[in-house]
């Protein structure tokens, strides 16, 4: 019984490393991101974790929710209402401070754990380390990415 509980705890605490799944790294130092597997709790989040693909791209409802989250967490303060940039970089053109942000896994990593250039971590447990109830879930990050991609200006 003790052992079982221990294993269950371990499963929650360990970074997600599902079968044939992707592994996520921090944009700051390239170290693995410790995101509890249980947080990938929606079909889209699970799909992302196994393939690195964002199932919400082009999904109108998800984009709408993504916009709300983008406002709720004041992303607009630095990146503008649509991600066009203000004091922070433009997120909808084709120029990236971190080349990997052009793909969904890369931008997920950047949003989750932040950058060394002023962007704070936004993922739950990473945003406010002593209060894991604050911050975005993986599913919410994917919706924000879907919102940003929907605003992308083609070049």
């Amino acid at each position: 019984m003790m052992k079982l509980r221990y294993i269950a705890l371990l499963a929650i605490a360990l970074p997600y490393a599902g079968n044939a799944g992707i592994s996520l790294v921090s944009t700051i130092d390239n170290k693995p991101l410790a995101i509890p597997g249980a947080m990938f709790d929606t079909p889209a989040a699970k799909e992302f974790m196994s393939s690195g693909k964002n199932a919400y791209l082009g999904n109108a409802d998800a984009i709408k929710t993504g916009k709300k989250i983008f406002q709720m967490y004041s992303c607009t303060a630095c990146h503008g209402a649509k991600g066009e940039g203000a004091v922070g970089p433009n997120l909808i053109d084709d120029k990236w401070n971190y080349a990997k942000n052009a793909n969904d896994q890369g931008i997920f990593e950047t949003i989750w754990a932040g950058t060394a250039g002023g962007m704070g971590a936004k993922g739950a447990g990473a945003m406010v380390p002593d209060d894991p109830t604050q911050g975005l879930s993986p599913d919410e990050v994917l919706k924000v990415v879907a919102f940003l991609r929907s605003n992308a200006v083609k070049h």
Partner: protein
Amino acid sequence: MKTTTLKLALAGVLGLSSLSSLAATELENLMKDDSQWAHPRKDYANTGYSRLSQINKGNVRNLKMAWSFATGVNRGHEGAPLVINDVMYVHTAFPNNVYALDLNDNQKIIWSYFPKQDPSVQALLCCDNVNRGLGYGDGKIFLQQNDGTLVALDAKNGNKLWDVKVVDTKTGASNTNAPHVIKDKVITGCSGGEYGVRCYISAYNIKDGSLAWRAYSTGPDSETLIGEGFNKDNPHYSALSVYEDVNGGNKEGGSFKALTKDQMKFPEKELGTRTWLKPQAIKNGYEHGGGPTWGWYSFDPALNLMYYGTGNPGTWNPDVRPGDNKWSMTIFARDVDTGMARWGYQMTPHDEWDYDGMNEIVLWEAKGKKLATHFDRNGFGYTFDRTNGTLLVAEKMNPFVNWATKVDLKSGVPVKDPKFSTHQDYNAKGICPSALGVKDEQPSAFSPKTGMFYVPLNHVCMTYEPVESKYIAGQPWVGATLTMFAGPDGVMGGFMAWDGLKGKSAWYNKEKFSAWGGALVTSSDIVFYGTLDRWFKAVDAQTGKELWKFQVGSGVVGNAITYSHKGKQYVGVLSGIGGWAGVAMNLGLTNETDGLGAAGGYKELTKWNAAPGGGAMNVFSL
């Protein structure tokens, strides 16, 4: 034994007080000496005025660059250096380096100071990595670092004498203001209106950095330092509410009707908590109510009162903070020894547009009256009786101001136009001015000779959409998205001379871009200021006619100064584009359709400036 101790203690107290008054006298003497520039706006009254007149209307066209000093730092260089006893003290944008340049030895560096600051503080600076300059007093140079640390440096060698943490960056607070030495205290502010910080103004003893007093902008009277006699002559400034809700008030379609003075209930106490009606976005709105204090502080030694403005309430979404939200958007007069407020007037009750009220208050006299004039972001130019706060003049600085039709002088309340009321998830269009204000932090100058104010201006309007946002300590808490565009004149800036008694401009020049550089006026009736398209200009104080200009390396957001050295007059200004102006100008860059066709105007700024702007001090002489 006992008597000896008492005598010694007494001697100590006397010694201390005479020392501090000596320090005050030294600074006051430096302020009177026009060869110096010893205070951020030259004098306690914030005039930006100098009696130097060697450079005059007849010879100003011969001004040439005497020397320049590249700061080695990029981005917005606001504020101005100090010049004290043949040494110029230059500050920079983040990381807020300081250089002491020897004017007697070809501007050789006497000492430099390089603060070690956590780079993450840059993410907290909403509107570029600016620092507005240094303070001086008691042989010390004061630097207010962006990371909240106030540092006292030995003016002779740059050695750190003491430092103290003014604000906590973990709460999202930071600093951008210049510390102002007033008597034996150094006054410093707080930035963080977009982070839900409950801001305050603090006075430290210049001797050892101990806190003398601190006054919050919001909260209980005991913490906003409001007590007996506050607003004694204008008790209606202490009304519980100045508006009545129309169509439900804080929701789409709702608006606010100004009460007349007769309808208002006053005086009331504890307004810093009671004007944050329920429900707020968070439990007690005032606890994260903003009211930043990053402006230029003035002081009247005869009244012993200091004057400053508090900024916007947090968050920008007005629907989730019903009530007048005192004492955000307020001009305060406080006793500088105790911090107790003598009077406080709220310019924009229940702000719906981020008309951050922190701009400077300039002290002057006319017709035997002690006056104070303030050009607010909300587009009104105010003149008060500074002894008691009585409002004498409140007029639109430009007719394009549309959020209010007028300010009722009897009640002091702005009459809001319901068309421009802003509400959650509704994109209010065509609001003038934009959140940049008709004037932002760039300080105006006042000439006692012409009796006129010289005011750098923005001419920008906006759309404003409040949105739901979540307060998390240390994270941005903005709650609105906005788009800015050029105002009806088709340009984005201007510069004017203003009559503070009539509340009218005497002359007005259009500027292609926002005039984001602070003004200098001299007794030879020349006004100096810089522009974002890199011009440093001299204009005629009587007519506004351009007399001279020179193009510097990057757009100017710094304040023009003048001093003399070995009998020769110099004028100077920091260059290095940035600040909110630089940021706002960049807003429309990617989408041509943004900004209702003004995107071309924004875009053109990049045709005049390399980005990011390189910082430099530029100095000119005949």
